[in-house]
């Protein structure tokens, strides 16, 4: 194993804010209350959320999209920066059963986004009209020089279907000198969201101060704050 040269470990919780986004399908569609299994198979505005991409430190982020739909499907792609800014790409089309590979760095450079600074990491949302999940996607983050490979899992958001988690429970492990641990939280709505944060370690649940993810004030929330307040 190569000798580790870094001795510091970062365990940070990055909070990505969504700024207000006036874009189809719009907030009304997203916040609809279509009951589960009621109209979910109908064509309606839908969103796919990918929690994280990174171009930082030489990383490559590739959005892979596959269509399981027998017709061409138009979609819009919105990239959100760390500060909550939105870079909206022109409408794209995916052909039936096609696989699209979108280099997010090229895309953002083409949109004149700051890939060195604010847009060096963030989240991705895809908007389209369709039946439930005709599109599947994933952001693969790689750094071939350092053999890093990470995936950003897709979360589908048909209006009212409730596939977004009501609570977020995760874990970390293998933290040691030289390893970075980062947890990214993204607010997918255009409303501010308050949340309680708990850290479990050493057999105890430690409540932290409430977390507010608003649409207007971008910023970071570092886990060390939670950690400090929980001790």
């Amino acid at each position, binding site marked *: 194993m190569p*000798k580790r*040269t870094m001795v*510091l470990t970062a*365990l*940070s919780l990055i909070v990505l804010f969504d700024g207000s986004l006036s874009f189809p399908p719009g907030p009304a569609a997203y916040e609809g209350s279509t009951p589960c*299994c009621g109209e979910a*198979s*109908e064509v309606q505005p839908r969103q796919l959320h990918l*929690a*994280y991409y990174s171009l930082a430190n030489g990383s490559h982020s590739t959005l*892979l999209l*596959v*269509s*399981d739909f027998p017709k061409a499907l138009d979609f819009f792609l919105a990239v959100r920066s760390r500060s909550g800014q939105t870079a909206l790409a022109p409408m794209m089309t995916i052909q039936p*059963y096609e*696989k699209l590979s979108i280099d997010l760095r090229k895309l953002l450079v083409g949109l004149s986004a700051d890939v060195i600074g604010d847009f060096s990491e963030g989240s991705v949302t895809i908007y389209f009209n369709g*039946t*439930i*999940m*005709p599109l*599947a996607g994933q952001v693969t983050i790689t750094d071939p020089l350092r*053999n*890093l490979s990470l*995936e*950003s899992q897709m*979360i589908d958001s048909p209006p009212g*279907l409730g*596939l*977004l*988690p*009501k*609570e*977020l*429970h*995760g*874990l*970390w*492990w*293998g*933290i*040691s*000198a030289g*390893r970075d641990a*980062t*947890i990214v*939280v*993204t*607010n*997918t709505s255009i409303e501010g*969201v*308050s949340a309680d*944060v*708990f*850290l*479990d*370690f*050493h057999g105890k*649940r430690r409540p932290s101060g409430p977390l507010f993810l608003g649409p207007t004030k971008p910023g970071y929330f570092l886990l060390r704050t939670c*950690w*400090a307040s929980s001790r």
Partner: protein
Amino acid sequence: MLGEFKVSPAQAPEGGISIIPRSPTPALIAQGQITDPVTGFSTTLNFPLPELQLASALHASGVPIGVPSHDSPFAGLGLFIPHVIVRNLASAAQTVAITVEYPGEEGPAQAALAPVGLEPYSTREISLASALGLLPTALPFCSLRIHYSGPPGSVIGEVSSIEQKGDLVIDSRLANEGDGWAGSGSHPWRLDAETDSVLFLTNMGEQEVPVLFRMHAGGVTFFLTDLRLGPRETRAIDLRKLRDEQKPDFMGNVIPANATDGSVSWIRADLVPVMGRLVVLRRNKGIASNYDCPGCICPASFTGTLEVRNPNGNANDYAMLEDNPKNFEAYAFMTQCNTSQSWARVTADSRTDWKSYHPSIATVTNDTKSKGRVTGLIYGDAQIEAKHTGKVFPLPTCTPPQDKTGTDTIKVMVSEVCSGERGTIVQEYIDYRVTLALRCSFFTQTAHSQYFSFAEMETGDYTWALVRRPLVRPASSGYGLDRWRELYGAPRIINSAYRNPSRNARVGGAPQSRHMYGDAVDLRNESGTAGEWQQMDDAARLAGADYREPLSLSGYGHVHADWRNHDAYNDFAQ
């Protein structure tokens, strides 16, 4: 940086984080990662959907363990030790029991590890290094079942297999056994000199389960129709091997030999929990990516034409199937998205009853091995019916599965076997999916009308052509080509009449162009003027043409007319 937290890595190498929104409307998503920029160690941290934690057991599929055997997708990558990390979300202690499931010599085998305790609100990393001694020397892969004693959803976890020298980490996302659709849907794959793609499927239940598998590449759809998983079995489907075998599926399709990208989708076809994941391995760079979806994708409806061989044993001996517009997947299964009740999925594998209403023309088998296979016997059309009883599978958070019964029919068109040039032409109709069943006697080398010779009508590649009756009817019949000519009132030159499918494709004809059916003619507009074009079009209308190409399609160079609805569709002139 951790120093600023006043907690050293050694003090809290593992732990848990919970974020509970105060609003009842879900809006937050999260993801984490652990990376070591120096060694390349990288692993993804997931926040599983609580709504999918419906059972007190988790499963990981396709986990490299030990030194993988030579037939493993992970062969040559090193020595792997799986690590299971579990977090107790509950305030009460519980136990966790890990079972290693692996392919044994006589089928799926299991090795149970000693249960371990999990204190309240604690996170524990469990190395499976000690399990290697319980297992055969070299395994291609294994699956891990993690059963916990608390209520469903009280434990979450991660599984990462770490190569001991290079810090290559292969994550195996955990699925809850109550989420019987875990990972199903569509996934992107890649194959190149450095990259392999392997789909792992695990039957998490105690019954055999059929799995529907579909692979797309280069415009080709390829099916595996005999895929069944035994209880607790994990199957690795190496997409490179599948591509390189060049073995046709039941429709005769093969994955293009040079395909490097595409998508693969799969779905269980019975009420047995199945999980799967696609692993994309970049061998030289030590990178492994997982693809799986947190929910399910409703499979697309199948429409199109099918091709079956008829029983004479001749490789060129084909029949044609034409699918009706209904949602339908022929052969051994059907899937469809139910749009009338809900978002749902209907499957009907072994419970489909197939019947031919015209068994003297085409038969359909009902036995397990070749269920749904249609065999053409003689020229003609036959109706094939499939009655299916399947399950409507709503999302896990929705209503329970319900039985659903339906009936679909397809029209089968069986062509006759011809020799020589006509045999070649018939083959083109099959290759180009032209939905016309042919007899050898339909072809002509002499048919002509009063004004137009066979040589003028034969605008294909061969000496034989199809000429339907309207093209040779006398003008006095009131319709047809000669009537058109007379109504126009002057000689006309045929630009194009009969085209064999290959020729039609080369000249950019429509996929089902009537020129291949022998009832379409393009007459030249000699002056190229709008006035002459309009006069010719008016004459075609008066000559009863069933279809006239609009100017926007034809241009001023010619007028296209056909008589597709006149005379019997199989009334060909000789």
